[in-house]
């Protein structure tokens, strides 16, 4: 009895020690500094600033509650984004169950694809080379343009694309979440890439046609 109390006491001490180590990184004030980053991330995925705020709030609360689980090996931001992803997934799952998703949405995008290719399926105006895309990644302004291009995508297209690229889900998982067929999923992802490519071409790489 005594022994087990002693053990649990030492376990408590140990936990306390770890939490002391990470406490500075995870205290509410520090977490606030990550808030705007997290909100932007959530808005991209959810397209709803209020919902994004709520999800981020939940994330920060969850982070404080589970701060003992934070390991100093990852950065605080990576850790927070990890929690946020789960929270976003919960919202998306709930949404997928509501019958509001309309995959036939993309009439305009059918038009986009029609405009990109002629009746023989050849490029109406073939993509030109992009100058220094690698260097571009170092440019903060590029990321603003990239973010805007993401936001301009139609909702369902963007949703599928972000599940794939930001959340690293497989197409199978995306199909399940969005209740669409695999083929539909590939179509959405392809449209997303075509749309993004056009947007970056026009707004960043400056290949005006």
């Amino acid at each position: 009895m005594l022994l087990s109390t002693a053990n649990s006491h030492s376990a408590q001490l140990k936990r306390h020690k770890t939490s002391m180590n990470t406490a500075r990184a995870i205290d509410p004030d520090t977490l606030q500094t990550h808030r705007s980053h997290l909100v932007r991330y959530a808005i991209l995925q959810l397209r709803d600033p209020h919902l994004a705020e709520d999800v981020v709030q939940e994330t920060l609360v969850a982070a404080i509650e589970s701060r003992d689980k934070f390991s100093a090996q990852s950065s605080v931001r990576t850790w927070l984004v990890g929690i946020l992803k789960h929270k976003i997934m919960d919202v998306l799952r709930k949404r997928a169950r509501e019958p509001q998703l309309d995959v036939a949405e993309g009439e305009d995008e059918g038009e986009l694809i029609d405009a990109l290719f002629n009746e023989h399926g050849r490029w109406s105006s073939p993509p030109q080379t992009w100058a220094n895309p690698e260097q571009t990644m170092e440019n903060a302004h590029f990321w603003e343009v990239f973010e805007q291009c993401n936001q301009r995508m139609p909702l369902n297209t963007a949703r599928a694309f972000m599940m794939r690229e930001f959340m690293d889900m497989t197409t199978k998982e995306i199909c399940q979440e969005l209740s669409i067929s695999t083929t539909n999923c590939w179509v959405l992802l392809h449209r997303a890439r075509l749309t993004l490519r056009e947007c970056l071409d026009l707004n960043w790489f400056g290949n005006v046609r």
Partner: protein
Amino acid sequence: MLNCKQNTELLSQALDRPVTFREKVAMRFHLMMCRGCRNFEKQVAFIHKAARELPRKL
């Protein structure tokens, strides 16, 4: 023989699923002759990479 529209669809799917040998050959063949699609392939790879980088850059 693929046209550009079909080829871009396949290039995109190659990022989302394993493609068959036959599909791979068809894409390579088209790419040899089509500069527009070669640029598209590179640019889509760039977008793929950039999208994965975005959470850190926001």
